[in-house]
């Protein structure tokens, strides 16, 4: 990548270049607009699931925790489109509320890990020197154990529960991002335009904010979508094991755990939350891959 930009720098103005006031970060967005259906369809689906979950309190027909002993394990009907569970709770409402819990947790986790990773990676990579040596050693050390192990170690100290799980996931998740961003910064620092900015006396903060950060935007978006999918899988797994969201609160993982004994006779209780988890994870993978393909073609 850096060799390409060197070539571009050596032979300037062979074709019309964008006006100087135009910022480089608009380019990814512009061709995102021109992109194919392989990106648009999964993005639209993912977005609608996220919105539907966030609007759970408006869309859900029933209170997700309201028990109805007359209607235990009911089959799908006009009143209960996905039936009811072993305590007579409306499955559709619980799916919506559960989705809100799962997705909001994953979104918070994603934003926090990516931001932390970005801050650490940017500063460490750009400042360099001894600070970078310490940070990169720490990153290498932390990355040499599986991140789930780190998550569970933190969770062990904090104790099981929604907040504990979220803190543990963030505490273990930022490390991988920091390493990726750090190495991107290291190669961006060598580019001609950063050199040019340095030579006209731009401050460090300005170079980081105006020249390096915008060029990381596509990796931020790709990493964030893939992270969202991975976090949803981890959060639901750990909630399923009783380490995350605690009953009676709905979460796709706890729903599967509570209904375990009824799967044989009432497959819908297993299918509904499981399909939701898989679908969101799949859509995240599709969106992440599609954006990455687009970026690779762009180069």
């Amino acid at each position, binding site marked *: 990548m850096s060799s390409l930009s060197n070539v571009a720098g050596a032979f300037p103005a062979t074709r019309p270049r964008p006006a100087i006031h135009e910022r480089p970060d608009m380019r990814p967005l512009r061709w995102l607009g021109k992109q194919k259906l392989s990106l648009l369809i999964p993005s639209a689906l993912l977005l609608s699931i996220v919105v539907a979950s966030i609007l759970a309190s408006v869309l859900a027909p029933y209170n997700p925790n309201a028990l109805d002993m007359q209607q235990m394990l009911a089959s799908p009907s006009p009143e209960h489109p996905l039936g009811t569970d072993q305590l007579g709770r409306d499955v559709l409402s619980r799916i919506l509320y559960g989705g809100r819990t799962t997705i909001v947790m994953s979104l918070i986790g994603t934003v926090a890990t990516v931001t932390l990773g970005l801050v650490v990676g940017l500063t460490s990579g750009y400042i360099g020197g001894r600070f970078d040596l310490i940070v990169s050693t720490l990153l290498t*050390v932390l990355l*040499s*154990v*599986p991140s789930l192990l780190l998550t569970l170690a933190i969770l062990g100290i904090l104790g099981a529960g929604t907040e504990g799980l979220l803190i543990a996931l963030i505490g273990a998740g930022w490390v991988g991002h920091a390493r990726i961003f750090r190495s991107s910064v290291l190669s961006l620092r060598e580019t001609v335009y950063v050199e040019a900015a340095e030579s006209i006396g731009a401050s460090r903060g300005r170079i980081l904010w105006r020249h390096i950060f915008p060029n990381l935007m596509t990796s931020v978006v790709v990493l964030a979508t893939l992270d969202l999918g991975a976090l949803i899988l981890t959060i639901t*797994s750990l909630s399923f094991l009783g380490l995350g969201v605690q009953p009676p609160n709905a979460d796709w993982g706890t729903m599967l755990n509570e209904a375990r004994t009824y799967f044989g006779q009432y497959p819908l209780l297993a299918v509904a939350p*499981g399909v939701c988890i898989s679908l969101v994870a799949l859509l995240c993978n599709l969106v992440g891959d599609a954006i990455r393909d687009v970026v690779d073609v762009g180069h």
Partner: protein
Amino acid sequence: MGRYVINRLAAAIPTLLLLTLTAFLLNSAARGDPATNALRAGGQEPTPEAITAYREQLGLDDPLPVRYATWLGNALQGDFGRSFIDQREVSEILGERIGPTLRLGLAAFIFTTILGVGAGLLFGLFANTWIDYGGRVGSLLLASIPSFWLALLLITYVSEKWQLLPVAGYGGLKFMILPVLALSLGPAASLMRFTRSGMIEVWRQDYVRTARSKGLRQTFLVMRHALPNALLPITTLLGLRFGQLLAGAIVIESIFAWPGMGSALISAISGRDLPVIGAYVLIAGVLFIVVNLVTDLGYAFLDPRVRLDATGGRGA
């Protein structure tokens, strides 16, 4: 090669230090006073004198670095303290569970490797045919399905409905099929994708084109030129896959009531049994580091470019 081995071993030292430090902190971040807890397990409320004496005996009043050194010395001899829950030796609790975990992990590792690499090579060789498209859709689906849900479905249908295999428990091959399947399919899917792209990349190389233009037979081309080079980078991935399996086993063991370290960890976290958690982190971490060290050294042994690069020699 010798220098590469030394460099690689030295790089593992800070990680080991951090792991022991984490395990030690987990061990000492006790809820309440460990001396009181231990004595209370005897049945009656201990006297203040007994607590002071016991604290001294355990060395709980020493400064932290001293306690760390003592703890490290004990840990190296396999003594990780006692569980908060039932006062059993942690080494005993985890010791009897390492075997089952390694058994499950190893079986899943072999299955993952064969399935992932085999299918990946197939998809790579038949790139952009219907085999490849089917494989890509399949691997994408497998990578998105949570392993615990897959496990639940397997139990519900294969064991409960069709009664083909036991629901859960520890035993021979019959008990291992479902856990290994649930554990392996996800990691195998990502291995497939890596192998596929590796194979396609090798297929584009000049030496493969040359070999092809010489009119070599297709099978010879695949076996002699493409396969070895495509498989090389995958060896390092296998080490990472092992860590993924180790982590996945935590969930799968609990579902199948497999008496391994993972299910012990889950109950330890629920019960906040910190010494067990600490010891688990240490043991699993060391296991992971060792496996990665072995795969990295194997990679360097197979591919001279790696060791020349890493020693800062003529590689670049």
